[in-house]
């Protein structure tokens, strides 16, 4: 692949990254950071690709460490994210049947200006 193609891919990927993140609710910032954190474990591929070219003990040891690091990054990242997100799952509560976001069963008070769900 030519350098220019690679840079084009790089730039497009940057825009995808910007676009995807710009509409995330605060609540999900931690799982999101953790999830993206797992994705950069992709560096593992670098370790895999280089192993057969390695010479000498030092390089082999370093690459085993790199592969180990990459694997910890990926596995740890995805598992931790999964655990965190599992906590956001709504438990089947009986009264949670009506609308999801805005008007969930508040006690019957006069709906003051603040209860409009996701404004701002």
């Amino acid at each position, binding site marked *: 692949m030519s350098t220019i193609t690679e840079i084009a891919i790089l730039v497009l990927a*940057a825009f*995808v990254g910007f676009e995807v993140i710009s509409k995330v609710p605060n609540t999900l910032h931690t799982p999101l950071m953790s999830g993206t954190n*797992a994705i950069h474990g992709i560096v593992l591929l670098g370790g895999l690709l280089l192993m057969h070219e390695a010479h000498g003990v030092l390089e082999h040891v370093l690459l085993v460490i790199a592969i180990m690091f990459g694997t910890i*990054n990926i596995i740890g990242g995805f598992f931790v994210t999964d655990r*965190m997100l599992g906590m956001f799952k709504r438990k089947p509560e009986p009264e949670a049947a009506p609308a999801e976001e805005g008007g969930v069963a508040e006690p019957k008070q006069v709906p003051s200006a603040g209860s409009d769900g996701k404004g701002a």
Partner: protein
Amino acid sequence: MLAPAVFLQRLNFIDACYIVAFSMFIYGMSGLTGPRTAVGGNKIAATGMAIAVIATLLTPHVLSGSATPWLIALGLVLGTAIGIPTALNVRMTAMPQMVALFNGVGGGAVAIIAWIEYRHRFGGLYPEKTEIPTLFAAIVGSISFWGSGIAFGKLQAILPSRPIKLPFQAFINAGLFVIAVASAIVLASGTHSQALFILGVLVAAALLGIMVVLPIGGADMPVVISLLNAFTGLSAAATGIALNNTAMIVAGMIVGASGTILTNLMAKAMNRSVPAIVAGGFGGEIAAPARGDTDRGPVRSTTPDDVAIQLSYARQVVIAPGYGMAVAQAQYAVRDLEKALEAKGVRVLFAIHPVAGRMPGHMNVLLAESQVPYELLKAMDEVNPEFQRTDVTLVIGANDVTNPAAKNEPGSPIYGMPILEVSKSKSVIVLKRSMASGFAGIDNPLFYEPETSMLFGDAKQSVSEVTAAIASL
């Protein structure tokens, strides 16, 4: 008729797998942005990762050599054996340091790979386009590894969480940066003593990573972790260019881009700029507090029984949690309190400051763990107008995010940071271990205001006592 077959033949199977993999990363990540699709999104991204790894292992020559498959297997097995138990056993409250740790090992892998790349490809033989990305990856990966290590140490309380400052810090950092870049330039232009200079690059960048994170105080830590996360992403993308690997380019870059946005969002929430945070943490000026501590006036302390009475007769109660709730593991006790109050007909809201805790969304994760309904969690902008009609605000282990000095005292280090305006409610009860100041090391005038009373003690125990007292009313 023939065209599709030819097309398929030309389309390399491995590359096709990579395209599938990075599509799944992007699709999975967009899933992560909604509460309902997030779990699935994460699994999709993980599947994409598995496809990318398997495709790489199927690449010609990757498993060639008698020892290669075993060494690769060794690395994978070790990583899995360490990663899974760590991820499954970590407590939710320790999440920030886990993210720092996983981020750090990613950066470490990048630095090692760049080093090996360098040893192989450039003995003056390949002064090609791959050189600059490799050197970039070496510098940034090394910063990320060591910086994350320090962040982990601080959050895990192995290192003191207060800012650690050296004299001439800025000069030292600038010097290290110059050394790292200069060594890289020497490497990129000359052909002499590569081994030495690449180590110079890695070591100078390592010291820089350490020196940049050491002076950063607890309150700025989330921003720094997010920044380092973006760094690791960028360095992974650079490694991808060096190795001609599309999956790495795309995955690394979307992490780099999204991490940058996230870092900015977080810095904005604190009304600080990222360069200001990197240049030195909060608390750099604690030596000169805006006013002496003496003229603050007396502090009123209260008892769980009094708090219980106040809460039960309130119409609306806002709970503002902070890092103290995480440390005390009080989220379940807080959920019980919320239920007890609801049973009495009190409307309860949770006020979530964007940087409460040590990560954005830290409080949300903890409260979700204890099954507080999602609808009760209100972001700062939503909840600030509510304080005026709130009878009692319960501040649980949150200090800096409720500190009125951020609004009223231009001399304060956190001046300008948006806060939860808890003092607008009729009364404020602050649950706190002692009168020590928060992570930022700044005194909080809120504690001395006439409508504030303090309930000293472990947050979990205090909340449980209040709940018990409410039940017995």
